[in-house]
C-alpha cells in the first residue's frame, strides 16, 4: 500500500526555537500509526505542522499525493486531514450540538452532516443525552468524545489524535479505545500520539519513537515488541 501521509525532512519550531529537526515518517502503509516518546520532544509540534497550525520552515508533507506543507489549516481541513488537538479545550461555552455543526462547517463535510451526526451518536450515545449542554459542564471523557465527534463531523479521510486518553480514568480509556477502534474499522486511517503504550499497541500497527524532534526508532509490523522493550527504549538503555 502507498502511504497516505509522507513527512519528509520537516524542520519547524516557534520563533527562533527549532523543535523538529529534519523529521521524516510515513503513515498508512501498514495501517494505523502510533507516535510516542518523552514529553516536550515535538510530537504535538509535528501534528501542528501537519495540520497547518504551524508553517514548517522546510521539508515536505504529502497527503494523498498532494503537497500540503504551507497550506492554511482551512485548506488542509478541506482535504479531509483532520486533527484532534491535545487537551480537549474545544469551545467551552458552546453546546455539543454547536460543536457538531462546526465540525461540518467545511464545504467538503457539509453534505455529509446528517449521516455523520448519526455515526457520532451511535459511537457516543452519551453525547445525545447532553446534546444542548455546554462543553465546559462535561466530564473529561465526555469532552474527549466531543472532540473526536467534532472531527468525525468533518468527514475525515485521515484522523490525527493527540493524546486522546490524557487524564482519563482507566475504564473511560478502555471505552474510548473501543470507540476509536470502531472508527478505524469504519475505514478511517489513524495517526495517534499517546503516552499509554497499551492503548497504542491495541490501535496501531506501526510505531515511531520521537525524540529530540526526530524519529529515533521505527517499529514496523512483525517486529512486534512487548511492553517492556518499548519502555526501555522510552527511557534509554
Amino acid at each position, binding site marked *: 500500500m502507498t502511504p497516505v501521509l509522507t513527512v519528509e525532512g520537516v524542520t519547524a519550531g516557534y520563533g527562533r526555537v527549532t523543535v523538529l529537526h529534519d523529521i521524516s515518517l510515513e503513515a498508512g502503509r501498514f495501517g494505523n500509526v502510533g507516535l510516542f516518546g518523552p514529553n516536550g520532544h515535538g510530537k504535538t509540534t509535528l501534528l501542528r505542522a501537519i*495540520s497547518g497550525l504551524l508553517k514548517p520552515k522546510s521539508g515536505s508533507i504529502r497527503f494523498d499525493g498532494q503537497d500540503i506543507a504551507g497550506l492554511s489549516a*482551512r485548506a488542509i*481541513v478541506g482535504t479531509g486531514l483532520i486533527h484532534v*488537538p491535545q487537551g480537549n479545550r474545544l*469551545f*467551552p461555552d*458552546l453546546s455539543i450540538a*454547536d460543536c457538531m455543526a*462546526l*465540525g461540518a462547517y467545511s464545504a467538503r463535510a457539509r453534505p455529509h452532516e446528517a449521516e455523520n451526526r448519526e455515526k457520532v451518536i451511535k459511537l457516543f450515545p452519551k453525547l445525545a443525552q447532553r446534546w444542548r449542554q455546554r462543553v465546559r459542564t462535561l466530564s473529561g471523557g465526555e469532552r474527549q468524545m466531543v472532540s473526536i465527534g467534532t472531527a468525525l463531523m468533518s468527514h475525515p479521510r485521515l484522523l490525527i489524535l493527540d493524546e486522546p486518553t490524557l487524564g482519563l480514568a482507566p475504564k473511560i480509556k478502555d471505552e474510548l479505545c473501543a470507540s476509536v477502534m470502531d472508527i478505524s474499522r469504519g475505514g478511517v486511517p489513524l495517526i495517534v500520539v499517546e503516552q499509554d503504550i497499551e492503548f497504542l499497541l491495541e490501535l496501531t500497527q506501526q510505531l515511531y519513537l520521537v525524540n529530540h524532534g526526530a524519529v529515533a526508532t521505527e517499529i514496523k509490523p512483525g517486529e512486534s515488541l512487548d511492553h517492556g522493550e518499548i519502555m526501555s527504549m522510552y527511557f534509554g538503555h
Partner: protein
Amino acid sequence: MSALAEILFGGLFQGSLYAMMAVGLALVWTTIGVFNFSHGVFMMLGAYIAWQLVEIGLPAAVAFPVAVVVMAGVGWILQASVVRPLIGRPNIVLVVVITTLAAGSLIENGALTIWGPRSKQIPALIDGNTTIGGVGVSLHQIAIIVITPLILAALWVFLNRTRLGLALRAVAQNEDASHLVGLNVTALYGLAFAIAASLAGLAGIFMGGYRFMSPVMGSDPLLKALIVVVFGGISSISGPIFAAYLIGFFEAACSYYFGLYWTPALLFGVLILTLMVRPEGIFASRSRGLA
C-alpha cells in the same frame, strides 16, 4: 409623573446609543481579544459619510443605509491594516491600543481636513415632536429607542441562530480549534470589525440627527462605551447591552436630581465601586464568549 417619564425616556434614549456603541466594542473584544480605540472615530465617520451622501442629493432613506455599508468596509480595512498583522504577538492587546488610537487620530484629522471644523447636522430619522407623559420628545429620539432594540435583537439572532454567527462565537472561544474545523479565522476577524464599525456608524447617524456633528464627536461616546463594557463585563455582548441601559437610566436620574454637572462624577463613583466588588463586571461570566 413627568419626572419618571423624563428619566425613563432619557435613560432609554442614552442607553440605546451606548448599547449600539458598546456592543461593537464587546464584539471585537470577544472575537479578537483586542480593544478598538478607533471605535469612536467609526461613529464620527458614519455620520460624516451620511452627511456627505445627503449633501450630494441622496434621500436619507438611501444615504443612511449606504453609509452603514461603507462603514462595514472601513471596519474591515482597518482590521486588515492595523490589527491583523499583529495577531499572534504576545503583547497584541497593548500594541493594538496604540495602532487603533493612531489610525483613529489619522482618520479624525482626515475628516477635519476634508469636512472642516464647522458643525454639521444630518436629517432626523423622523421630523417632528410629541409629548409623552407630559414630556416633550422628538420623534427622532423615539425612532432611536424603537430601532436600537430591533437591531440588537437581529444581532442576537445572527450570532445565535445562524451558521456564520456560530463561527464568530467559536473563534471568540478557541482560535486553534476554529482553524481545525476549517473556519476562515481571518475573515471572521474582519467580519467582527465590519459589524462593529457599522453599528458605530449607525450610532453616529443617530447622533448627527439631533446634535451638531464635529470630527471629535466620537470621543465622548467611545469613553462611555468603554465604561459600559467595563461595567457590564467585556466577556459577552448581552452584559454590555444591559449595562448600557442601566447606565443610561442612571445618568438620566442623576442629571434630573443632581444636574448634568455631577453626573460624570457619580457615574465614575459607581463604576469604581462596581470594579472593587466585581472586577469582571456586573453581568459577566468569567470566560470570554459571545452570548
